[in-house]
């Protein structure tokens, strides 16, 4: 039996309504990446993560679970999970990411903060008030739920006096820059991706990295937000030789990630097809600029094509070698119940 779409979308809606995110994380988990970095709280310009990178290891773990349920008799009982999730944060309890995965995605956030600091960009961070932007609710078409959540985000940004946000992933960029102005009155926050900020700042690499890299464009960046040339400019300036699949730039091909929670097998098949296109360039390593793309393609490649977030490649070239990253606090169990701030 296929996974029941209504129950899974319903579970996400319940979480967003009750816990402020489609997949609630405790504030401690979503902010631990920033520990020891000395990023000031708040300010007119903030680095806005929307918790996307922090969520990914937990989503990956949840998808693994759903893959085992899809097309089995267990799919019939997903509605029970949704019912129980109304009382305890079951979605959080079920996801058990590895420490390595959690650290990997937290490092990407640290990379971005380091790149911006190195380029002389001043920014703050909202810590527990850095709320999920609602991309999945928008994609699923639950517009009333999205609008209520977007109002919460707007109120939070106003409370902190934020005038400009620097985003890290395409989905949060798209929500804040292109969707919020259509669902909220008076949403006038300036939104830029960190890739746009770095490109505009003419960030100077500290060293050249003469390596070939296959580039995978995010659909949302390329087709909705016009973020196509900026990542290329940054990588090429650092010496990377970019290899482009035929399906590239505004004609890029999906990673399969958007349907991983509802149709895991189909999602995986699309990821495999995309990996073949990337391999067709002859490249031996690839880069993504979206955490969802990274998770989907890395899994689809199964080690046959090493893949890293673009921030990893940029950090190698634009940040001092001696720059050490603070240790990430030990991973803890999920918070079982009770109000979860921030997410």
């Amino acid at each position, binding site marked *: 039996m296929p996974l029941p779409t209504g129950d899974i979308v319903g579970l996400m809606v319940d979480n967003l309504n009750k816990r402020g995110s489609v997949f609630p994380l405790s504030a401690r988990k979503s902010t631990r990446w920033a520990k020891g970095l000395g990023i000031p709280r708040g300010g007119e310009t903030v680095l806005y993560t929307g918790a996307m990178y922090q969520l990914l290891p937990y989503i990956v773990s949840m998808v693994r679970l759903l893959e085992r349920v899809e097309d089995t008799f267990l799919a019939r009982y997903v509605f029970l999970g949704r019912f129980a999730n109304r009382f305890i944060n079951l979605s959080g309890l079920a996801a058990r990411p590895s420490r390595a995965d959690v650290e990997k995605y937290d490092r990407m956030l640290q990379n971005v903060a380091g790149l911006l600091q190195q380029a002389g960009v001043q920014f703050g961070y909202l810590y527990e008030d850095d709320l999920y932007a609602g991309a999945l609710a928008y994609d699923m078409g639950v517009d009333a739920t999205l609008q209520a959540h977007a109002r919460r985000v707007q109120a939070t940004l106003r409370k902190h006096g934020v005038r400009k946000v620097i985003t890290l992933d395409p989905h949060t960029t798209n929500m804040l820059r292109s969707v919020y102005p259509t669902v909220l009155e008076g949403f006038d926050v300036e939104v830029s991706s960190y890739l746009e900020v770095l490109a505009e700042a003419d960030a100077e690499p500290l060293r050249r990295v003469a390596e070939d890299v296959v580039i995978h464009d995010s659909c949302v960046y390329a*087709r909705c937000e016009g973020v196509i040339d900026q990542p290329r400019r940054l990588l090429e300036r650092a010496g990377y030789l970019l290899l482009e699949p035929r399906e590239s730039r505004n004609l890029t091909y999906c990673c399969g990630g958007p349907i991983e929670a509802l149709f895991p097998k189909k999602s995986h098949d699309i990821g495999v*097809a995309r990996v073949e296109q990337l391999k067709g360039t002859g490249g031996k390593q690839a880069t993504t600029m979206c955490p969802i793309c990274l998770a989907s393609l890395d899994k689809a490649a199964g080690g046959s094509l090493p893949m890293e977030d673009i921030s990893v490649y940029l950090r190698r070239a634009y940040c001092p070698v001696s720059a050490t990253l603070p240790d990430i606090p030990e991973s803890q169990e999920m918070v079982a119940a009770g109000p979860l701030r921030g997410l």
Partner: protein
Amino acid sequence: MASKVDLEFAREVATSEEFNAWACMNCGVCTAVCPLGIALMPRKLFRHTVLGLKDEVLEQRDAIFQCLLCRLCQENCTADVHIAENVRFLRSYIDREVFGLDADPAERKDQYALAHR
């Protein structure tokens, strides 16, 4: 079985600001480039929608939720149909009418605010 026009559904489609498949010329480019290769998507589905054939549309619920919203079809559409937005419109309809989700916030207690008082 004869197809049946659902007037309520047809009215909602006709008055929607989001749904704009009227310009579709049925050229099939969208289907040709779709990573999922869903034969129905999106031209036939949209034809059913503009005709108000609600049952035929609801039968394609899986296809509607399988869409990646990657917009490769939209990028190649010769008639400038906002395909992703149309799919979102249909998801929104199914969320409300079939799944019973997404009540208007005015009709729903703000659970988040209650939990965070």
